[in-house]
Protein backbone atom coordinates (compact mmCIF):
# COMPACT_ATOMS: atom_id res chain seq x y z
CA UNK A 1 0.00 0.00 0.00
CA UNK A 2 1.36 3.40 -1.00
CA UNK A 3 1.50 6.47 1.15
CA UNK A 4 -1.65 8.40 1.84
CA UNK A 5 -2.12 11.60 -0.15
CA UNK A 6 -2.50 14.40 2.36
CA UNK A 7 -3.24 18.05 1.54
CA UNK A 8 -3.83 21.21 3.51
CA UNK A 9 -5.02 24.61 2.40
CA UNK A 10 -6.50 27.83 3.63
CA UNK A 11 -9.33 30.00 2.45
CA UNK A 12 -10.34 33.10 4.45
CA UNK A 13 -8.38 32.60 7.65
CA UNK A 14 -5.37 33.87 9.48
CA UNK A 15 -3.11 30.83 8.97
CA UNK A 16 -3.15 30.31 12.72
CA UNK A 17 -4.45 26.78 12.30
CA UNK A 18 -1.48 25.98 10.07
CA UNK A 19 0.83 27.46 12.69
CA UNK A 20 -0.75 25.14 15.21
CA UNK A 21 -0.25 22.28 12.78
CA UNK A 22 3.44 23.15 12.67
CA UNK A 23 3.42 23.06 16.46
CA UNK A 24 3.28 19.29 16.27
CA UNK A 25 7.03 19.89 15.81
CA UNK A 26 9.13 16.80 15.13
CA UNK A 27 6.05 14.64 15.01
CA UNK A 28 5.58 15.93 11.47
CA UNK A 29 8.20 13.35 10.54
CA UNK A 30 5.82 10.63 11.72
CA UNK A 31 3.17 12.14 9.50
CA UNK A 32 5.52 12.23 6.53
CA UNK A 33 6.44 8.61 6.97
CA UNK A 34 2.83 7.66 6.41
CA UNK A 35 1.68 10.41 4.04
CA UNK A 36 2.77 12.55 1.15
CA UNK A 37 1.82 16.19 1.52
CA UNK A 38 0.68 16.79 -2.03
CA UNK A 39 -0.68 20.32 -1.77
CA UNK A 40 -0.78 23.26 0.61
CA UNK A 41 1.01 26.31 1.91
CA UNK A 42 3.78 24.08 3.24
CA UNK A 43 4.65 22.66 -0.19
CA UNK A 44 5.00 24.19 -3.61
CA UNK A 45 2.36 22.88 -5.97
CA UNK A 46 0.27 25.22 -8.08
CA UNK A 47 -2.87 23.17 -8.65
CA UNK A 48 -4.91 20.98 -6.37
CA UNK A 49 -4.20 17.42 -7.46
CA UNK A 50 -6.68 14.63 -8.09
CA UNK A 51 -7.39 11.69 -5.83
CA UNK A 52 -6.36 13.21 -2.51
CA UNK A 53 -7.17 11.06 0.51
CA UNK A 54 -7.35 13.67 3.28
CA UNK A 55 -7.55 17.46 3.00
CA UNK A 56 -7.48 19.88 5.91
CA UNK A 57 -9.09 23.20 4.99
CA UNK A 58 -8.59 26.23 7.19
CA UNK A 59 -10.68 29.38 6.84
CA UNK A 60 -14.18 30.31 5.73
CA UNK A 61 -15.64 30.80 2.27
CA UNK A 62 -15.55 34.54 1.64
CA UNK A 63 -14.95 35.14 -2.04
CA UNK A 64 -15.76 33.63 -5.40
CA UNK A 65 -12.20 32.29 -5.47
CA UNK A 66 -12.72 30.48 -2.15
CA UNK A 67 -15.92 29.03 -3.50
CA UNK A 68 -14.29 27.69 -6.68
CA UNK A 69 -11.40 26.34 -4.65
CA UNK A 70 -13.49 24.47 -2.10
CA UNK A 71 -15.68 22.94 -4.80
CA UNK A 72 -12.61 21.70 -6.64
CA UNK A 73 -11.11 20.36 -3.40
CA UNK A 74 -14.32 18.55 -2.56
CA UNK A 75 -14.39 16.92 -5.99
CA UNK A 76 -10.86 15.63 -5.54
CA UNK A 77 -10.84 14.67 -1.88
CA UNK A 78 -12.02 11.54 -0.14
CA UNK A 79 -12.10 12.91 3.42
CA UNK A 80 -12.55 16.64 3.83
CA UNK A 81 -11.71 18.10 7.23
CA UNK A 82 -13.01 21.52 8.30
CA UNK A 83 -9.95 22.73 10.12
CA UNK A 84 -10.52 25.35 12.80
CA UNK A 85 -13.31 27.73 13.78
CA UNK A 86 -13.25 29.89 10.63
CA UNK A 87 -13.91 26.83 8.50
CA UNK A 88 -16.62 25.59 10.85
CA UNK A 89 -18.39 28.73 12.07
CA UNK A 90 -17.04 31.55 9.82
CA UNK A 91 -15.64 32.97 13.08
CA UNK A 92 -13.72 36.25 12.67
CA UNK A 93 -14.11 36.51 8.87
CA UNK A 94 -17.85 36.08 9.48
CA UNK A 95 -17.97 39.22 11.59
CA UNK A 96 -18.42 41.22 8.40
CA UNK A 97 -21.71 39.45 7.77
CA UNK A 98 -23.74 41.97 9.75
CA UNK A 99 -22.95 44.66 7.19
CA UNK A 100 -23.54 44.90 3.45
CA UNK A 101 -20.31 44.54 1.45
CA UNK A 102 -20.57 48.07 0.09
CA UNK A 103 -20.47 49.45 3.63
CA UNK A 104 -17.39 47.36 4.32
CA UNK A 105 -15.63 48.70 1.25
CA UNK A 106 -16.63 52.21 2.22
CA UNK A 107 -15.14 51.76 5.65
CA UNK A 108 -11.97 50.01 4.48
CA UNK A 109 -11.05 51.91 1.35
CA UNK A 110 -12.49 55.36 2.02
CA UNK A 111 -13.15 56.18 5.67
CA UNK A 112 -10.06 54.43 6.99
CA UNK A 113 -7.75 55.13 4.08
CA UNK A 114 -5.46 58.17 4.15
CA UNK A 115 -4.58 58.16 0.46
CA UNK A 116 -5.74 56.56 -2.78
CA UNK A 117 -9.46 56.46 -2.06
CA UNK A 118 -10.83 53.77 -4.33
CA UNK A 119 -12.13 50.22 -4.17
CA UNK A 120 -9.76 47.80 -5.87
CA UNK A 121 -11.70 45.78 -8.41
CA UNK A 122 -9.27 44.31 -10.92
CA UNK A 123 -7.22 41.18 -10.37
CA UNK A 124 -8.62 40.32 -6.98
CA UNK A 125 -11.38 37.89 -5.97
CA UNK A 126 -14.86 39.29 -5.45
CA UNK A 127 -16.35 39.13 -2.01
CA UNK A 128 -19.49 37.05 -1.65
CA UNK A 129 -22.40 38.82 0.11
CA UNK A 130 -21.59 36.83 3.26
CA UNK A 131 -18.78 34.70 4.59
CA UNK A 132 -20.06 31.18 5.17
CA UNK A 133 -18.70 28.08 6.89
CA UNK A 134 -17.39 25.43 4.50
CA UNK A 135 -20.15 22.92 5.20
CA UNK A 136 -22.77 25.40 3.99
CA UNK A 137 -21.10 25.22 0.57
CA UNK A 138 -19.89 21.62 0.24
CA UNK A 139 -20.28 18.46 2.30
CA UNK A 140 -17.71 18.15 5.05
CA UNK A 141 -16.71 14.83 6.63
CA UNK A 142 -14.90 15.80 9.81
CA UNK A 143 -14.96 18.91 11.97
CA UNK A 144 -11.95 19.96 14.01
CA UNK A 145 -12.94 23.07 15.94
CA UNK A 146 -10.63 25.45 17.79
CA UNK A 147 -9.11 28.84 17.26
CA UNK A 148 -6.68 27.34 16.63
CA UNK A 149 -7.17 23.64 17.43
CA UNK A 150 -4.36 22.53 19.78
CA UNK A 151 -1.39 20.83 18.13
CA UNK A 152 -1.90 17.61 20.08
CA UNK A 153 -5.46 17.32 18.85
CA UNK A 154 -4.37 18.02 15.29
CA UNK A 155 -1.75 15.34 15.54
CA UNK A 156 -4.27 12.92 17.01
CA UNK A 157 -6.73 13.64 14.21
CA UNK A 158 -4.11 13.22 11.49
CA UNK A 159 -2.77 9.99 12.98
CA UNK A 160 -6.24 8.50 13.20
CA UNK A 161 -7.06 9.51 9.64
CA UNK A 162 -3.78 8.17 8.28
CA UNK A 163 -4.63 4.87 9.83
CA UNK A 164 -7.99 4.90 8.16
CA UNK A 165 -10.02 5.64 11.29
CA UNK A 166 -12.53 8.42 11.91
CA UNK A 167 -11.12 10.39 14.85
CA UNK A 168 -13.45 10.76 17.83
CA UNK A 169 -12.93 14.35 18.86
CA UNK A 170 -15.60 14.50 21.56
CA UNK A 171 -14.33 16.47 24.54
CA UNK A 172 -10.93 17.09 22.97
CA UNK A 173 -11.34 20.50 21.46
CA UNK A 174 -13.95 23.22 21.34
CA UNK A 175 -14.93 26.43 19.62
CA UNK A 176 -12.55 29.27 20.52
CA UNK A 177 -9.83 27.07 22.06
Amino acid at each position, binding site marked *: MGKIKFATTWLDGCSGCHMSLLDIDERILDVLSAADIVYGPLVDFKDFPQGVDVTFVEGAVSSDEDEEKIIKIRQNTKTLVSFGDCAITANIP*GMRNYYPTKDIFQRAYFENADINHKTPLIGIPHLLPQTRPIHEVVTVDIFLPGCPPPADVIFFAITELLQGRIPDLTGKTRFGK
Partner: protein
Amino acid sequence: MKKVSQIQTLVIDGKEVGGRHDETILQVARENDIFIPTLCHLDGLTEYGGCRMCIVEIKGMPRLTPSCTTLIREGMVVTTNSERIMEYRRGILALLFTERNHICSACVSNGHCELQGLALKLGLTHVEFPYIFPKMPVDATHDRFIADHNRCVLCSRCVRVCHEVEGAHTKDIMGRGITARIITDLMQDWGESKTCTGCGKCVHVCPTGALTEKGKSVAEMEKRRQFLPYLKLMRERS
Protein backbone atom coordinates in the same frame (compact mmCIF):
# COMPACT_ATOMS: atom_id res chain seq x y z
CA MET B 1 -46.16 25.92 59.99
CA LYS B 2 -43.75 23.54 58.34
CA LYS B 3 -45.00 20.87 56.01
CA VAL B 4 -43.76 17.39 56.66
CA SER B 5 -41.59 16.32 53.79
CA GLN B 6 -42.08 12.90 52.35
CA ILE B 7 -39.29 10.81 50.96
CA GLN B 8 -39.94 9.30 47.58
CA THR B 9 -37.88 6.83 45.65
CA LEU B 10 -37.35 6.69 41.95
CA VAL B 11 -34.97 5.35 39.33
CA ILE B 12 -32.71 7.66 37.32
CA ASP B 13 -30.60 6.04 34.61
CA GLY B 14 -31.01 2.68 36.24
CA LYS B 15 -29.87 3.94 39.63
CA GLU B 16 -32.25 3.82 42.57
CA VAL B 17 -32.35 7.20 44.24
CA GLY B 18 -34.49 9.03 46.75
CA GLY B 19 -35.51 12.60 47.39
CA ARG B 20 -37.99 14.85 49.11
CA HIS B 21 -41.39 15.13 47.44
CA ASP B 22 -40.80 18.81 46.68
CA GLU B 23 -37.51 18.25 44.87
CA THR B 24 -37.16 18.32 41.12
CA ILE B 25 -35.70 15.54 39.03
CA LEU B 26 -32.71 17.78 38.36
CA GLN B 27 -32.04 18.34 42.04
CA VAL B 28 -32.21 14.67 42.87
CA ALA B 29 -30.06 13.76 39.87
CA ARG B 30 -27.36 16.23 40.90
CA GLU B 31 -27.40 15.02 44.49
CA ASN B 32 -26.60 11.62 43.07
CA ASP B 33 -23.88 12.75 40.67
CA ILE B 34 -25.99 12.16 37.61
CA PHE B 35 -25.12 14.79 35.04
CA ILE B 36 -27.94 16.65 33.31
CA PRO B 37 -26.86 19.64 31.22
CA THR B 38 -28.55 22.96 31.98
CA LEU B 39 -28.34 26.52 30.79
CA CYS B 40 -31.20 28.64 32.12
CA HIS B 41 -31.21 26.86 35.48
CA LEU B 42 -29.13 28.35 38.26
CA ASP B 43 -29.17 27.34 41.91
CA GLY B 44 -30.75 30.14 43.88
CA LEU B 45 -33.08 31.40 41.13
CA THR B 46 -36.62 30.30 40.28
CA GLU B 47 -36.85 27.76 37.50
CA TYR B 48 -37.56 29.04 34.00
CA GLY B 49 -37.82 25.94 31.82
CA GLY B 50 -36.81 27.80 28.68
CA CYS B 51 -33.52 26.38 27.44
CA ARG B 52 -34.78 22.78 27.17
CA MET B 53 -31.28 21.39 27.71
CA CYS B 54 -32.35 19.40 30.75
CA ILE B 55 -35.10 17.42 29.04
CA VAL B 56 -35.41 13.82 30.17
CA GLU B 57 -37.55 10.82 29.34
CA ILE B 58 -39.99 9.61 31.97
CA LYS B 59 -41.33 6.11 31.52
CA GLY B 60 -45.01 6.21 30.66
CA MET B 61 -45.02 9.83 29.61
CA PRO B 62 -45.27 10.44 25.90
CA ARG B 63 -43.47 13.78 25.98
CA LEU B 64 -39.98 14.76 26.96
CA THR B 65 -39.97 16.73 30.19
CA PRO B 66 -37.68 19.44 31.52
CA SER B 67 -36.11 18.00 34.68
CA CYS B 68 -35.69 21.44 36.27
CA THR B 69 -39.43 22.03 36.63
CA THR B 70 -40.69 18.50 37.15
CA LEU B 71 -41.10 17.25 40.69
CA ILE B 72 -40.19 13.70 41.48
CA ARG B 73 -42.87 11.10 42.06
CA GLU B 74 -42.74 7.76 43.74
CA GLY B 75 -41.77 5.02 41.32
CA MET B 76 -40.75 7.34 38.49
CA VAL B 77 -38.34 5.86 35.97
CA VAL B 78 -36.20 8.56 34.40
CA THR B 79 -33.70 8.37 31.56
CA THR B 80 -31.40 11.38 31.23
CA ASN B 81 -28.97 10.41 28.51
CA SER B 82 -30.50 8.27 25.78
CA GLU B 83 -29.13 8.83 22.29
CA ARG B 84 -32.44 10.46 21.34
CA ILE B 85 -32.19 13.03 24.13
CA MET B 86 -28.53 13.73 23.41
CA GLU B 87 -29.36 14.32 19.76
CA TYR B 88 -32.13 16.77 20.70
CA ARG B 89 -29.82 18.57 23.13
CA ARG B 90 -27.19 18.96 20.44
CA GLY B 91 -29.90 20.25 18.10
CA ILE B 92 -31.05 22.84 20.62
CA LEU B 93 -27.49 23.88 21.34
CA ALA B 94 -26.82 24.18 17.61
CA LEU B 95 -29.86 26.47 17.28
CA LEU B 96 -28.49 28.65 20.07
CA PHE B 97 -25.21 29.04 18.23
CA THR B 98 -27.00 30.15 15.05
CA GLU B 99 -29.31 32.77 16.55
CA ARG B 100 -26.68 35.34 17.61
CA ASN B 101 -22.96 35.81 16.99
CA HIS B 102 -20.95 33.60 19.28
CA ILE B 103 -17.41 34.32 18.18
CA CYS B 104 -15.72 32.36 20.97
CA SER B 105 -12.20 33.23 19.92
CA ALA B 106 -12.83 36.95 20.35
CA CYS B 107 -14.97 36.70 23.49
CA VAL B 108 -13.97 37.84 26.95
CA SER B 109 -15.65 34.74 28.33
CA ASN B 110 -13.73 32.33 26.11
CA GLY B 111 -12.90 29.34 28.25
CA HIS B 112 -15.34 30.28 31.01
CA CYS B 113 -18.55 30.16 29.01
CA GLU B 114 -21.35 27.73 29.76
CA LEU B 115 -22.55 27.66 26.16
CA GLN B 116 -19.09 26.84 24.91
CA GLY B 117 -18.68 24.32 27.71
CA LEU B 118 -21.89 22.57 26.75
CA ALA B 119 -20.76 22.24 23.14
CA LEU B 120 -17.59 20.57 24.37
CA LYS B 121 -19.42 18.35 26.81
CA LEU B 122 -22.11 17.25 24.35
CA GLY B 123 -19.69 16.79 21.48
CA LEU B 124 -21.09 19.49 19.24
CA THR B 125 -18.26 20.03 16.77
CA HIS B 126 -20.25 21.97 14.20
CA VAL B 127 -23.65 23.48 13.57
CA GLU B 128 -25.55 22.14 10.61
CA PHE B 129 -28.22 24.83 10.57
CA PRO B 130 -27.30 28.00 8.73
CA TYR B 131 -25.98 30.84 10.89
CA ILE B 132 -28.29 33.85 10.97
CA PHE B 133 -25.61 36.50 11.62
CA PRO B 134 -27.97 39.17 12.96
CA LYS B 135 -26.63 42.63 13.62
CA MET B 136 -26.86 43.07 17.39
CA PRO B 137 -26.07 46.09 19.54
CA VAL B 138 -23.53 46.37 22.34
CA ASP B 139 -24.43 48.58 25.30
CA ALA B 140 -21.25 49.90 26.91
CA THR B 141 -22.83 52.95 28.50
CA HIS B 142 -22.52 51.66 32.06
CA ASP B 143 -19.41 52.65 34.00
CA ARG B 144 -18.43 49.13 34.93
CA PHE B 145 -20.40 46.69 32.81
CA ILE B 146 -21.04 45.82 29.18
CA ALA B 147 -24.09 44.17 27.66
CA ASP B 148 -23.14 42.48 24.40
CA HIS B 149 -26.30 41.15 22.79
CA ASN B 150 -24.26 39.18 20.28
CA ARG B 151 -23.52 36.66 23.03
CA CYS B 152 -26.91 36.56 24.76
CA VAL B 153 -28.82 33.26 24.89
CA LEU B 154 -31.98 34.74 26.50
CA CYS B 155 -31.72 32.40 29.48
CA SER B 156 -33.23 35.22 31.61
CA ARG B 157 -30.91 34.57 34.55
CA CYS B 158 -30.07 38.30 34.67
CA VAL B 159 -33.76 39.19 34.66
CA ARG B 160 -34.51 36.75 37.46
CA VAL B 161 -31.55 37.63 39.67
CA CYS B 162 -32.28 41.33 39.33
CA HIS B 163 -35.94 40.84 40.19
CA GLU B 164 -35.76 38.03 42.72
CA VAL B 165 -32.51 38.63 44.55
CA GLU B 166 -31.53 42.26 44.07
CA GLY B 167 -35.15 43.42 43.97
CA ALA B 168 -34.46 46.10 41.38
CA HIS B 169 -36.08 44.59 38.27
CA THR B 170 -33.84 46.64 36.02
CA LYS B 171 -33.53 43.91 33.42
CA ASP B 172 -36.40 42.49 31.45
CA ILE B 173 -37.19 40.98 28.08
CA MET B 174 -38.64 42.94 25.21
CA GLY B 175 -40.08 41.69 21.96
CA ARG B 176 -41.11 38.26 20.80
CA GLY B 177 -39.55 35.19 19.24
CA ILE B 178 -36.27 35.60 17.48
CA THR B 179 -36.39 39.37 18.02
CA ALA B 180 -36.70 39.10 21.82
CA ARG B 181 -33.98 40.98 23.64
CA ILE B 182 -32.84 41.75 27.17
CA ILE B 183 -33.44 45.39 28.00
CA THR B 184 -32.54 47.76 30.80
CA ASP B 185 -35.52 49.56 32.34
CA LEU B 186 -37.80 50.65 29.49
CA MET B 187 -35.13 50.07 26.86
CA GLN B 188 -32.83 52.78 28.11
CA ASP B 189 -29.07 52.73 27.96
CA TRP B 190 -27.70 50.82 30.91
CA GLY B 191 -25.63 53.82 31.93
CA GLU B 192 -28.80 55.92 32.15
CA SER B 193 -30.68 53.45 34.33
CA LYS B 194 -32.20 54.93 37.46
CA THR B 195 -33.11 51.55 38.92
CA CYS B 196 -29.82 49.71 38.44
CA THR B 197 -27.96 49.48 41.74
CA GLY B 198 -24.73 48.49 40.03
CA CYS B 199 -24.54 45.32 42.13
CA GLY B 200 -23.24 43.25 39.23
CA LYS B 201 -25.28 40.16 40.07
CA CYS B 202 -26.59 39.97 36.53
CA VAL B 203 -23.06 39.99 35.18
CA HIS B 204 -21.99 37.11 37.33
CA VAL B 205 -25.00 34.89 36.72
CA CYS B 206 -24.78 35.37 32.94
CA PRO B 207 -23.66 32.05 31.44
CA THR B 208 -21.89 33.60 28.45
CA GLY B 209 -20.03 36.75 27.55
CA ALA B 210 -23.24 38.75 27.12
CA LEU B 211 -22.88 40.58 30.43
CA THR B 212 -19.31 41.27 31.46
CA GLU B 213 -17.15 43.64 33.43
CA LYS B 214 -15.35 46.38 31.60
CA GLY B 215 -11.59 46.18 31.18
CA LYS B 216 -11.46 42.45 30.59
CA SER B 217 -9.69 41.11 27.54
CA VAL B 218 -10.33 37.87 25.65
CA ALA B 219 -10.79 34.92 28.01
CA GLU B 220 -10.29 37.05 31.10
CA MET B 221 -13.89 37.26 32.30
CA GLU B 222 -14.50 34.70 35.01
CA LYS B 223 -17.89 34.69 36.70
CA ARG B 224 -18.33 34.25 40.43
CA ARG B 225 -21.63 32.72 41.48
CA GLN B 226 -20.97 31.46 44.98
CA PHE B 227 -22.90 34.39 46.41
CA LEU B 228 -26.23 33.18 45.16
CA PRO B 229 -26.88 29.97 47.11
CA TYR B 230 -25.35 31.70 50.14
CA LEU B 231 -27.69 34.69 49.89
CA LYS B 232 -30.64 32.40 49.43
CA LEU B 233 -29.72 30.32 52.45
CA MET B 234 -29.21 33.39 54.65
CA ARG B 235 -32.54 34.82 53.63
CA GLU B 236 -34.36 31.57 54.29
CA ARG B 237 -32.89 31.48 57.77
CA SER B 238 -33.83 35.02 58.69
